[in-house]
């Protein structure tokens, strides 16, 4: 059976650059898109890319464990949101407004696509400045960019949305950034396993909140609308 090094040689497109470009794109899409199915798929892709990046720094077994945790996180989140969306799906006539589907509803600010695009561009400038002025010590430039980018994008998603599943995507993106940084500091198996348990606990709590909110909406409208 070929080792990870051999696999990486066979698949040269799985380079650090590819992973970082992919992570930049997927996280930006998480800010821009409001379709929950696409968002879940992108989150899974983000976990895959994050672990492709990690393979270059940590043993492949740990990266594989982290990917399995990521896949479980996506599964739990997908099942919770699917149940919530099924329970609270509006009649077909109300889901369309003048022939255009209403995407940006129930958010903290009423933010359209141009605003979100501009915010992402500004965030890119902030990350560039941070990399110039205070890069993280002992971390490669690619990883440095990915950590700052994912961390800030995660915070942005959390700030812009009020829906639990969308806020959850932001939180999980932020935690992915933290894990990318933390594996360069601490590679103990126990800590890695406990981080996985923590992620699962967080996503189970998120799933519970998503379901509870859907139940509230079904009964007669949530107060946080």
């Amino acid at each position, binding site marked *: 059976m070929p080792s990870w090094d051999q696999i990486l040689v066979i698949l040269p497109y799985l380079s650090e650059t590819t992973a970082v470009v992919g992570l930049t794109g997927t996280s930006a899409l998480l800010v821009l898109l409001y379709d929950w199915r696409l968002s879940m798929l992108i989150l899974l892709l983000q976990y895959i890319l994050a672990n492709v990046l990690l393979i270059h720094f940590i043993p492949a077994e740990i990266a594989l464990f982290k990917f399995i945790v990521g896949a479980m996180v996506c599964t739990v989140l997908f099942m919770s949101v699917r149940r919530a969306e099924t329970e609270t799906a509006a009649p077909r006539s109300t889901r369309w407004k003048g022939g255009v589907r209403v995407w940006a509803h129930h958010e903290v600010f009423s933010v359209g696509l141009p605003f979100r695009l501009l915010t992402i561009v500004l965030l890119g400038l902030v990350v560039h400045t941070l990399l110039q002025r205070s890069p993280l010590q002992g971390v490669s430039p690619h990883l440095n960019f990915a950590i700052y980018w994912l961390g800030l994008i995660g915070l942005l998603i959390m700030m812009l949305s009020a829906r639990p599943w969308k806020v959850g995507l932001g*939180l999980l993106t932020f935690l992915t950034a*933290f894990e990318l940084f933390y594996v360069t500091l601490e590679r103990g198996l126990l800590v890695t396993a406990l981080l996985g348990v*923590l992620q699962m*606990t967080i996503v189970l709590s998120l799933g519970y*909140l998503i379901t509870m909110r859907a139940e*509230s909406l079904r009964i*007669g409208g949530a107060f946080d609308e």
Partner: protein
Amino acid sequence: MSQALSPLWLIALPLVTAPLVFAMRRRERLACLLAALSMLLTLRLCLSTPFDWSTDFLGRTVALQPSGRIFLAGVFLLAAMHLTYASFVSQGRAFSYLTLIVMGLLSAITMVQSGEMALLLLEIALVFMVLGLQLPSLRSVRGALYYLLGVSVAGPLLLIMIHLTQTRVLNPIDSALPQTAAILLVLGVTALLGAVPFQAWLYNVCLESPPLVVSFIASVAHGIILFKLLDWSREFPWLIQDGHVLSLMFAIGLVSTSLGGVLLLFQKELRAAFAWLILFDTGCLFMSLSVLPPEGPALVTLLWLNRAISVSLVGMGMGMLPKAQTSRSFASLNGLVWQKPFCALAVAVGALSLAGFPLTAGFTSRWLTVQSLPTETQRWMVVLAVVSAAACLGCLRWLAATAGKSSSEAYDNEHPLLWGIILLLVAANIFLAFYPQTSLQPLLRILEVG
């Protein structure tokens, strides 16, 4: 015998009982009583476990230190009281078994000697509490969601802080490292305790969660956070002895206290008033954290003791108010003093103590804190006096509202056991107010031993 006295029992007993309690969750009273019994049994084991007993758990040393024993005994007793109360006044079906899971994890956090493991277990325990914060009858998840965000964002900051403290041992000449670690520590603890600027979760949780669950978080969960903070500051004394860090903690404390006090004065809703009272008290805790050892840690412990008793009293009192579930206005509580005297007594003593009203434990602990503050921060005491007066006025407004004309609604009578718990907590509060030295002296000795 050796196995019977292993510290692992303090972790295992609550965790083993939790599935049994879960199976009985539909019989809420029985489940809560079983959970309370389990807490009392664990308390008994905690008091009989020798200090020199340690064991390995997942490759990490687990040992019960003197300070850990006192703290665990206190929280087990408090949890037993909360669970007994919850068996008569429902706090949601999840409260009983979630409390057991969290208490099992808290035992592990207190005894495990590894910083990362303790912190990750603390995070897991705090995230578990989300499941207890949400009542099915309430139609918003904002409080629980904000709480989850606060807890989840604090974890990474504290994990990096722990790594930096370990790096400092290897590289003692790096001058920037202690300050970075200390700032991360302050930010992380601020997010976990809900002080300014992270007060949003505290406010929303108080509005949307069962009152006793809020009390459990503000007393037991915040207690373990403070315990670990004192533990780290004892292990790494350089961490919070930097002048800038002490000033930062004092500033966070002053702003939190001011915001809590002023908002409390204008509050007309009991649940929101509870949130600002906790914020006010959190501010005082941060101020006491800016006092250097040995007085600082003893004062923090004394303030926490007052907080645990007071928030439990307010939570228990609020839980007995049928109207507090739907209506939160002071006006709807007219005549409460005459119809539910124990309920009014619990809220009044708890709230006044949290606000620092004279003749309560809150006043005494704050008075001692003010006397121990460094001279350069003494000039801010005028602000503290003004906001304390505002907080007390806010509480007195509530008392005045409850003493008004009698409401036509008929209230149920409470069980005598609930009266007993409330009277015990009120007596403890008054005892602490007049004899703080009885707890301060042993605390100082225990903190010196470690």
